Structures are given as C-alpha cells and as structure tokens.
C-alpha cells in the first residue's frame, strides 16, 4: 500500500484521465442528443405536417420541410370549412374546455387547500386516517365509478353538459389537491398558527391572513397540475358528454377518427397542436412548478 509511485506514472495517470474524460464527454452528449431527437421528433413532425399541403405530404416524407408556411389546415382545424353538417372543427369545443377547466380548477384547488389546512393545522384523533381515506381517491381506476356517475348525472339532469363535467372534475381533483396542500402545509411550522391563536385569530383568519399568503408556490403547482389533468382528460369527457358539450380532446379524437372521404393529415396535425398548445404553453412557462408537482406528489406518495 505504501508503494512509491514513480513520477513518470503520475504523468501517465494524468494523461490517461484527460483522454478518457474527453471521450466520455462526447459520448454523453451524443446519447443525450439522440434521445432528445426521439422526444422532439413527433413535435417536429406535427408542426411540419400541419404546414404542408396534402400533395406535399404524399410526395415527401415525415421529415421533409414544407415548401411554404401554409396555415390553411390550421384554419380548417379551428374554424372548419363552413359546410355546416358533418363538419367538426375545434373552436366551440376549445371554449367548452375553457368553461369546464376554469371552475373545476378553482373549486378543487379551494377545497383541497382548506382540507389540507384542516388536516395539518387542526389535528385531531384519526386525522391520518382521513388523509389516507382521501388519498385513496388519487389511485382508483375511474372505470370503477363511470357507471354510477353516468346515472347520477342523468338523475341530476346534468348529463351531457359542461356543468356535469365541472362536477366530475372537481370531485376527482380533490384527492390530488388535498395531497399537494397537505404536504406543503405539513412543513409550515405550527408555531405560526399557535402564535396567531394566542393573538386571538380564528380559523378562517389564520387561513386567509397567515397560510394563504405563503401558499403561492403550492397554489401554482396545484393549479398547473389540475389544469393539465382536466384539459387533457378524455375518459370523462367522452363518457359523460357527446356532441355539443364535448371538451376539446373528445372533439379532437372525433375529428381524427371521422372517416369522411379523404384523410387530411395536415388538418389532423393542426388540430392536435391546437388541442395541445394550452398545456404546452403552461409547461414551457412554468415548467419547474409542473415538475415540482410531479415529483413531490409522487415521491411523498
């Protein structure tokens, strides 16, 4: 162990590590870029295809660049052709989704925040059981509730309506929103609440004056999460609505599946992009909150 290493082999050690390091570095970047192409590829194809004419599509390949920036398919995807019957286009369904998402995100976030608050700052016997009780809702396969929900919506007279979808999304968002807020409030020191109670503040005052002001990060995470989940939903949308009240993902699917005469792939791609843009924008702008939601929600179980 106490070998005297010759100074020449010290030199060799220096050089060897320099070359292997360089090689490894190049290999690293190569692999990372390879995977990046796998991930970017579909987006590129979607955009490029939506800007081509059907002629160009038939003649070229997936990767080929469009000859010009042809936004016609976008216009058709959004506003249709103006034929009337049998012509689905995204505009009304886009607004349906907006009308559905906004209230659902709001209510589920509000309820989640208050429930998380109660569970962490007003402890009582059995509160972990209540949390577990609610948490379970994150995991159930929704197939187990589709049938009774369909009947209930019918009984309430709100089947095939945006209101119905708002109800569904609010309710099934509660487990997630509660999870986020509860995990966040758990790490807020209880001393804050105790000090406020000594000062005479009551239940709601503490919530609005003390907890809410420091809740910005988790509110962002929760809103982004809920927005993405609800905007991207298809199961509930397709099961509980059809026709005019449908949300955008359902409309997208219908458009793509409809086998009217000639398939217009460029319109399909444009529609897909339009349906995906809102969540994509949110992700690009607030990505790190998105990721924080994913990892914290998941890691904490």
């Amino acid at each position, binding site marked *: *162990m106490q070998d*005297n*290493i010759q*100074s020449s082999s*010290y030199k060799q*050690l*220096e050089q060897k590590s320099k070359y292997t390091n360089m090689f490894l570095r190049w290999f690293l970047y190569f692999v990372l870029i390879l995977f990046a192409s796998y991930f970017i590829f579909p987006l590129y194809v979607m955009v490029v295809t939506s800007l081509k004419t059907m002629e160009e599509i038939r003649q070229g390949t997936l990767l080929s660049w469009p000859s010009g920036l042809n936004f016609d398919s976008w216009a058709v995807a959004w506003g249709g052709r103006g034929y009337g019957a049998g012509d689905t286009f995204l505009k009304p369904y886009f607004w349906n989704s907006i009308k559905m998402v906004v209230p659902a995100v709001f209510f589920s976030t509000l309820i989640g925040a208050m429930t998380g608050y109660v569970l962490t700052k007003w402890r009582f016997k059995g509160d972990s059981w209540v949390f577990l009780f609610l948490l379970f809702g994150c995991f159930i396969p929704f197939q187990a509730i589709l049938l009774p929900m369909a009947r209930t919506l019918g009984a309430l007279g709100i089947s095939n309506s945006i209101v119905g979808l708002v109800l569904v999304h609010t309710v099934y968002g509660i487990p997630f929103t509660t999870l986020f807020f509860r995990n966040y409030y758990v790490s807020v020191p209880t001393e804050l609440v105790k000090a406020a109670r000594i000062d005479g503040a009551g239940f709601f005052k503490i919530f609005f004056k003390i907890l809410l002001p420091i809740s910005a990060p988790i509110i962002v995470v929760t809103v982004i999460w809920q927005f993405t989940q609800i905007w991207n939903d298809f199961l509930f949308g397709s099961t509980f609505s059809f026709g005019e009240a449908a949300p955008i993902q359902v409309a997208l699917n219908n458009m793509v599946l409809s086998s009217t005469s000639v398939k217009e792939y460029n319109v399909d791609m444009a529609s897909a992009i339009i349906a995906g843009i809102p969540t994509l924008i949110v992700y690009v702008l607030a990505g790190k909150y998105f990721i924080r939601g994913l990892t914290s929600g998941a890691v904490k179980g």
Partner: protein
Amino acid sequence: MKTLKIEDLSKNFGSTEVLRKINLEIDEGNFLVLLGPSGCGKSTLLNIIAGLETINEGDVFIDDYNVSKVEPKDRNIAMVFQSYALYPSMNVRENMIFGLKQAKTSKEKIEQQLEKVSKFLQVDQLLERKPSQLSGGQRQRVAIGRALVREPRIFLFDEPLSNLDAKLRVEMRREIKKLHQQLKTTVVYVTHDQTEAMSLGTRIAIMNHGVIQQNDTPEMIYNKPSNTFVADFIGSPSMNLIKGNLKETSGEILFTASGSNFEIPIKDYEFKDKSNLNNKEVFFGLRPEHIFFKKSNDNDFEITLRADLSEYIGHEQIMTFDYANQEILAKFPSTIKIELAKETKLYFDLTQISLFNAQTQERI
C-alpha cells in the same frame, strides 16, 4: 523530504479569491490543524490537497511528487468527512473495504487489514450492520476505519466532530488524539473550533480570508500570536487588546493606554524591529489568565481598576474591568470575591504580553 508541501497555491471561485498564495509544509507524523472561521478557505484547501478541487495557480507535493493534476485515488490519501459519508446501502465491512477493492488489493490483504483495523477501532462486532443501525460515535469510528485500512500517507479530516453533541465531541477528540499518538500518522485536520485545534494539533495554521495568518506550534500561537486576528481568535475569552501608545525615553520603553495615565514599562520583550518605537500607536495584548489578583512574582505590574461585571462559569469567573474606558477581562478562581463598582488592585504578568502595530495589526 516533506510529506506534504504546498507552493504558492491560489484558488478562485469565479471572481472570488478563496485562497491566496498559500505556502505550507508538513513533516511526517505531524498533526496539522487548519483553523479558521467559516469562509476562510480551510475546507477548500483540504479539498485541493485531496484532489477534489482544481487549482488555479501553484502546486501540491506529496512526498516530493507533484500531485497537482493527479486523481484523488492515486494520491495515497484518505479522508474523513463531517457527515462521515458512509455508503448507506452497504454494511460496515463493505464500507471499509470498498477502497481496497477498488485498488484491486488481494483478498488476503483485504481481510488482514480489515481485521487489524476493525479490532483496533473496536468496530469488529459491527461489521454486518448498516450505517443506519449505528450510533454517531460508531459511525465516526467506521469512517476513520475506512481511512485507516488504506494506510495512506496523509489523513485528511474535514470537521469530523462538528455534527456531534458537546459531550461526544470531547470523547471523540480524545480518541482521535490517542489514535494519532499510537499510529503516528500524518494528519491534516480542518476545524473552526480553536479548543479542538489547540488540543489535537502539533502544528496549527490559522487562516482568514484565504491567507495563512500564522503557522506554528500551539504554544507559540497561544503565547506569541503574530497578529491581532490570531490573538483574538485563540483563547476563551480571547486576549485583551488595549489601544494606546509607546513612548521611548532614554532607553526605556513605556506603554500608555489611550485616556490613561499609567505608564507600563516594557522590559524583556522581543521586538521584531526596535526602530521607530516612539509615539507608535499599538495594541497592548494580555490574556485574561495572565491577570492576577495577588502578586505572584516581582515583575508583575500593579494597577488599580474598577470591576464592572462578573460571570460565574463554575470553576472560574470572568471579570470585566474598566481600563481608561476600555474593557479588560480577567479570569479568576470563583472562590475569590471581588466587589463590583469598586477599584481593585490587579497584577499584570508582563512576561506574557504581546504588542501589535495598531495600523497593520501585526506583532511588533
């Protein structure tokens, strides 16, 4: 041949200069402590010796070989970390032999080393346990064992006692000292705790702002600090520094504190430079433990000061006196009763004083 030599070493992180032209040498078997407040660069220096940090300028030599560009594993060093850094998914045995296995040591040698070291550190009963099943003290011993099995030329310690509670810290400090006495290994040890440094080190390098303030034995650092920073950093409470002036008249040198009339004669003091002493602005340094309430020898200077505060520590008390509107602290046994707000006779042991240039803060 010096076991470790550092030549003109400089290191920056971006635009911040962390280490400035560091020069250091250690002989074999020495226990060098790098001492200083946080941010002084001591941990960076340690990491550079280990090869975990790059160098901007300068060189590091181990046994006279320039190891500045050599990988940590080839430098023949071992390190004990503040958090011990034991591998959580391996048991104690695997933790300790990991380095040996990486170096492709023969199985027999590995077993031999493991047995020797684990018995020596009394962790041989713990070999099958995982780090999470060990106490803080046990973890530390395993971390030391991991370093020991590799029989390195230099042991590096990065504040290993900082995570322990006070009592355990004192215990482990003694164990480390015993270890060093038995094994006579070369050690570089980083800490911010001056008591630790003084008790463990055979040499101490005090650092501040990336510069070594003084590199000396503990006795020299304690008795003859080379600047006011060292004087203040070492000792609890630290050395009293009284501002005043020197006067040189007919071969005699006298110190007068600002705002006071007492003239203290300076005799038998080793001046570095005896020129220009007249009217020089200085700090007069004297440790609290060198102020007495009773005359102990003839050279003691008698002075009368008013007592302002007393802090009882148990076996001793720390008293604050007013010296021409400057505070001066003294340490007395707690059995002595001194009345506050009254003038008391005190005795300065003038053989223990230090004088510092008030502008440069350097020892004169």
